[in-house]
């Protein structure tokens, strides 16, 4: 674990040279800050109804105007971020963890296990996610937890396949053979030697996955299949705004902006992470021979 400070330092050095990556990092940090501290930053109660002022444009009191029930859009957006964050964090962590385990089993274990797992992954991935979600939700009813569950199930194969490929590549490397020659058990090899070497691509994948997951939640909430009203979510804000578009464009703009920001931010940051992790920990000082 002592490699972590070195990694952080070199990440920042590299970020300074990559303006887009830096911009992404700033954007991501900003979004996280606003979301986490929504309770302190939000000027109004997002559930407070004020029908007299419904669908008003931006004003000093309501920076982003109000929605069809007179609720402050800005506050709803800030709190909506918490939903997005919760979904992304929980879903991606769970999918990553499960994908890591299954992927390592597939990549390192016997052939027959690999075949079974790969067939399972392909089967799950062959369902279009939204249809899968619709089917499940039709059975269980709309709820945020169901959304999270669906996202986890459909994301696991993606992570697992990446882990599997990386593990297979490592399997025949000399240092793994050396550990086996010393008598190390498979569990030890996977934990101490395989995992640390495949962690980096996994984190990058996760970072690039955040916008997709947030978008998925927003989409499902937009369809009315996600959060239950009156809980704010960026998707539900978009849905409400869509119905009242002719009265005021502001809810739509307010709901769409954070989605754009999250997507751009995580994508740029994730891409620069990839450049950072790839050559860094594998190369020596550059120099001729």
């Amino acid at each position, binding site marked *: 674990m*002592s*490699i972590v400070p070195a990694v952080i330092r070199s990440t920042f050095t590299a970020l300074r040279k990559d303006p887009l990556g830096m911009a992404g990092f700033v954007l991501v940090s900003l979004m996280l800050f606003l979301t986490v501290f929504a309770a302190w930053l939000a000027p109004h109660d997002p559930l407070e109804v004020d029908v007299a002022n419904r669908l008003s444009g931006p004003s000093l009191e309501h920076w982003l105007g109000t929605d069809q029930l007179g609720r402050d859009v800005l506050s709803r957006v800030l709190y909506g971020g918490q939903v997005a964050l919760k979904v992304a964090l929980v879903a991606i962590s769970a999918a990553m963890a499960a994908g890591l385990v299954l992927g390592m089993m597939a990549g390192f274990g016997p052939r027959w296990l690999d075949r079974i797992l790969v067939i399972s992954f392909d089967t799950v991935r062959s369902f279009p996610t939204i249809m899968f979600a619709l089917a499940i939700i039709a059975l269980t009813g709309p709820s945020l937890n169901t959304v999270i569950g669906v996202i986890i199930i459909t994301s696991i194969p993606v992570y697992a396949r990446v882990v599997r490929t990386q593990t297979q590549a490592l399997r025949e*490397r*000399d*240092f793994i*053979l*050396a*550990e*086996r*020659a*010393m*008598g*190390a*058990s*498979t569990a*030890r090899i996977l934990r*101490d*030697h395989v995992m*640390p*070497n495949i962690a980096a691509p996994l984190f990058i994948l996760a970072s690039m996955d955040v916008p997709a997951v947030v978008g998925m939640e927003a989409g499902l909430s937009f369809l009315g299949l996600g959060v239950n009203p009156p809980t704010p979510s960026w998707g539900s804000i978009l849905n409400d705004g869509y119905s009242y578009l002719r009265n005021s464009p502001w809810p739509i703009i307010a709901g769409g902006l954070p989605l754009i920001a999250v997507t751009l931010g995580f994508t740029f940051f994730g891409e620069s992470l990839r450049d950072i992790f790839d050559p860094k*920990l*594998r*190369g*020596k000082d550059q120099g001729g021979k």
Partner: protein
Amino acid sequence: MSALLAVRDLKVRYPLPGGFPFRAGGKPSWVDVVHGVSLDIERGETVAIVGESGSGKTTLAMALCGLAPVLGGEVRLDGRVLERDRNHRLNPDRKRVALMFQDPVGSLSPRMTVRRLLAEPMRIHGVDSRDPGREASRLLSLVGLGEEFSNRYPHQLSGGQARRVGVARALALSPDLLIADEPTAGLDVSIQGEVLNLLSRLQQDMGLGILIITHNLNVVRHVADRMAIMYLGRFVEQGDSQQVFSRPRHPYTAALLSANPSPDPDAQLDRVQLVGEIPSLLHRPPGCEFHTRCPRARERCTASFPGLTGAAGEQAFNCHFPMD
């Protein structure tokens, strides 16, 4: 009075992907990389196995460490049969045989410090060291590296340094037998001696048996007490290295010995010419397997496999028409 390591008729077979085991006339579905090898190594002795790429010498080394699928034959360490465990349960005999890999940097886990790497063998075998840092320093000093190397990562080591870390790691559990796969490959001539001298010194101090796998005959001449020449998974000749060098009996040995580019510009070169390249392991030549490249081959060589000439302990070879 048993040898430290006694190998009898060892065979390693690898399955080939695709194809049922019995495909009449089709492509073979397995390949015999080691095809019956017998060898003894005593304590304090250095034995070298030489051969070209594809001779199976690296596979032989891996088989002795449980890393290759052994088909048949026997390996005894101090008289006790070495368990062929296909599961990964800890085998105490694993501690007694240590392997050094050809790629010095690649055989070290890239995200671990040298200190952690040196502690690995002890962690694996549950040998509790109260102070792993001190153990690491002790091992490093055994191989002539300073303490500052404890904190380095493999990619920060030069080839020679990484090799020495590999030696240190191999010594961590005080093995009885050290197997070094191409210990001088990739090293500059000016530092090859460092690794070899180190191994000699350790052998003297610890009474190790050393098995060196190499295709570098110049090195073998100096450091090996006995040597074996391997071709297509079998030994064609073995014996005391000085004797083999001065009077090789098998034509392949003679060819290998003469195939050395000489650093003496005035040397008169009398090369035994080899024809062609090593045949594929999938299509072993009939009779004596070397006959396709042998300048002395005659009809009998195509027909029958030559038996072993020479008893154990002497210079032994398999050839119908040996050199004199």
